[in-house]
């Protein structure tokens, strides 16, 4: 099956790509996708959405799913923002 992988903001920058179609075996999970395609990101804090809903590492994927990797959100304004990359 094929799924579409999309990355945003600092994750996009760290991974060096924005969007990609990935072929995976049937019954692959979010975790399988991450280990196969972005193992270098696994030390970071981020969230995953499958088809625009938050998902977990063991969420099972299906053909045609859109999987988004989301850094901790920083929208809005009016809160102290930090300089430098978060640990």
């Amino acid at each position, binding site marked *: 099956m094929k799924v579409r992988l999309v990355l945003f903001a600092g994750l996009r920058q760290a991974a060096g790509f924005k969007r990609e179609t990935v072929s995976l075996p049937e019954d692959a999970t979010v975790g399988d996708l991450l280990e196969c395609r972005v193992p270098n990101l696994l030390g970071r804090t981020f969230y995953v959405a499958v088809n625009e809903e938050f*998902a977990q590492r063991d969420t099972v994927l299906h053909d045609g799913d859109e999987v*988004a990797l989301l*850094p901790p*959100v*920083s*929208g*809005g304004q*009016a809160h102290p923002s930090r300089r430098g990359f978060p640990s």
Partner: protein
Amino acid sequence: MSAKLFELTENPLSQDDILRRVSRFDCGGVVTFAGTVRGSTATGDGDRETDFLVYEAYVPMAEKMMARIGDEIRERWPLVKGVSILHRIGRCDIEEPTVLIAVATPHRDDGCFEACRYAIERLKEIVPIWKQENWRDGEVWVEGPRQPDLDVSTPNQAPT
């Protein structure tokens, strides 16, 4: 009224516009929160200057999550009649509003203040929008605080 209640836009935000989006015949109180770009932030090391911000969003999911915040508000404050959340994407200059949240109720004691406050807190938890801070000699994508129940970085997490 065709204006969307939950919207990401590259255009400047208007407080008069959002007031019109939530105004209703049976409402007498509207609270609006505006998050604006600070040009100067006090820190332990003195003031820190910002030149401008750039916002990036996962647009369809962000609008869906903003609508979900509206649903959560109507569940918690049943007297709330109108909720709108508008957020900028792209470049935002100093003092420009980057987010507007308006909540309308029949009377001012019917939850408009509390619901508006709730919405900005929730927005910073679940709405996929990120800001890049730009200053004289650098830029950085800012990441918000970690939401443990959403973090997938550890394999053995509890399901939500």
